[in-house]
């Protein structure tokens, strides 16, 4: 409910970033790097799975990047960033010890407690693994809150795999089913090849009535993965995704993230498929 003008006080500028320190930087692939950041003011951060930050480099600009570490109240956060524009290419030049501006967390995020007791199906395509990881880690860190956990991951090629350490760990765990595929293998690749939808017939059957799916990846992958999920009998309200847009303000004002009557930075980025269907131009 908005206040009247006289009731409203002039708040501090919401555009001033906090100082973030790059504690760790590691190249995952030719174009993607892993960053772990903490806050110079020592006050840490409290965020939910699926939320994002605005990462600033003064003189260049600001970019919205999903948080990919396990959610909660903590001192640091992790991101996996692809170098694709001015800000992200400049971020890739930085070494551990550098500082960046951080604003956030923004977005609705997703409270995993709301799917406690359900079977979880994570479907991550390409860089979609980054935000999806936040959900996956939350589930695995509190494993007994959830029933069966299935993780499907697809990348373009073995060179494009992200979070290899995590992938190995998830494969090794006996309390979750982990399947992965690449679109095209190489000489040494021993695993599955084919698009991510080829993994659906390979996974153990889930109970569609009590399965919550999290499908995060490029629009084309999302479309086909959702079809598979629906074919399995999952409810539209139990299929969730992250719709990403070029958020400039993160505050529901600049308008760049509008999809129909929704601001992705406010009512999203996490939407159920039922909502996405209504949004039409959403994907």
């Amino acid at each position, binding site marked *: 409910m908005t206040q009247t*003008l006289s009731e409203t006080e002039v708040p501090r500028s919401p555009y001033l970033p906090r100082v*973030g320190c790059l504690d760790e930087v590691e190249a995952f692939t030719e174009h993607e790097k892993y960053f772990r950041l903490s806050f110079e003011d020592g006050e840490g951060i409290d965020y939910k799975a699926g939320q994002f930050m605005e990462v*600033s480099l003064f*003189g260049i600009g600001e970019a919205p990047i999903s948080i990919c570490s396990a959610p909660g109240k903590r001192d640091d956060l992790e991101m996996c960033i692809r170098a694709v524009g001015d800000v992200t290419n400049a971020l890739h030049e930085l070494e551990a010890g550098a500082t960046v501006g*951080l604003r956030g967390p923004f977005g609705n995020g997703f409270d995993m407690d709301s799917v406690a007791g359900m079977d979880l199906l994570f479907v991550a395509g390409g860089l979609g693994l980054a935000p999806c990881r936040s959900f996956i880690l939350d589930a695995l860190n509190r494993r007994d809150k959830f029933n069966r956990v299935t993780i499907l991951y697809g990348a373009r090629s073995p060179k494009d795999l992200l979070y290899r350490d995590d992938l190995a760990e998830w494969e090794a765990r006996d309390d979750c089913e982990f399947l992965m595929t690449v679109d095209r293998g190489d000489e040494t690749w021993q695993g599955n090849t084919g698009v991510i939808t080829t993994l659906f017939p390979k996974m153990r059957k889930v109970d569609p009535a009590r399965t919550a799916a999290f499908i995060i990846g490029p629009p084309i992958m999302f479309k086909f993965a959702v079809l598979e999920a629906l074919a399995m009998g999952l409810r539209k309200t139990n299929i969730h995704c992250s719709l*990403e847009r*070029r958020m400039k303000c993160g505050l529901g004002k*600049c308008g760049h993230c509008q999809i129909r009557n929704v601001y992705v930075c406010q009512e999203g980025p996490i939407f159920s498929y039922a909502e996405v269907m209504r949004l039409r*131009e959403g994907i």
Partner: protein
Amino acid sequence: MLPQVLSKEDFGPFVTRLMQQYRVAAPMAKGPDFAFEVLEGEEEAARVRMDYDITILPPKKFLLPTYEELLDFSGPQPGAAQPRVESQETVILGVHPYDLHAIATIDAAFMADPVDANYVARRKATRIIGMNIQQYANEHQFMADMGTVEPPDGVAEMMLTDIGDRYFVEGTTDAGEEMLSDCPFCRPAGPEDHRARQEYDAKKAQNFPKRLPYHVRYLPELLDASYDSLLWDAVARRCFSCGTCTNVCPTCYCFDVQDKLNLDATSGVRRRMWDSCQLEVFAEVAGGENFREHRASRLRHRMFRKGKYILERTGKPGCVGCGRCSKHCVAKISILETFQQIAGEAAEVSA
């Protein structure tokens, strides 16, 4: 407080007196058109045109400037930034009721959580003196349909009505009444003044016919029914995606945020500037995907924002029927015509 009267002879001194305390912006002639401009010196008070029909740009430019600095930074280090939240005590003179409604809409949008510091600072420092109108300015306007002929409550501090050689002045907020009780040029309205005001209203009642073929309460749903219509492709054929419509629109407020470096290539400002959902790259994301790549989808988005989404999100009209977009569109696309054309859509789609 009972109404006052300000003679037109005293209007100049009334304005120069305001200028002692405030930055004053008022409607002035600009070629064949009119524009709100800041009065730079007392001699400009004589150029104020309270009888203007409509300005090119709405007064939103004083509350949401075309360029607005958000942060100063002295270097790339994030700790080196200073936020900027600026405002200047301002009076905007002569704002018509439809523009007052539009300001209420933008107020609602920027005061929605999280509150926009920069806008609120400017808005709180601004006093608006409204001006009533007696007829449509042109064939593009449809304020009667949008409910914006009468001013909204609480936006203007006072409303002026032209009753011949003088203005009928009504204080509509506490601050407005205070301004009036301080004003040495105003005298209390007498019976002839009240009568003149009533005659003004009687004439006015005949001058604002409705121009939509349906009641505006059906506009959002008619738009919904028209979402897949070929009408959008037909209209967008002419559109240049130039963004003129959003530029002149009193309820448009989308912006871009960019860093601008000084000549030393180190220090600079982060600033926001007017942007437009009509421009091709507005919905483009990293990697090149564009979620409103086609002109028709951009144009449709704008019409839906104006006729439906803004109303749903703020409770205030997204379109105030001022007609500026239709008047200035290079391709002569008219929002009134488009809203008229969707009247048939629901009947066709459901058939």
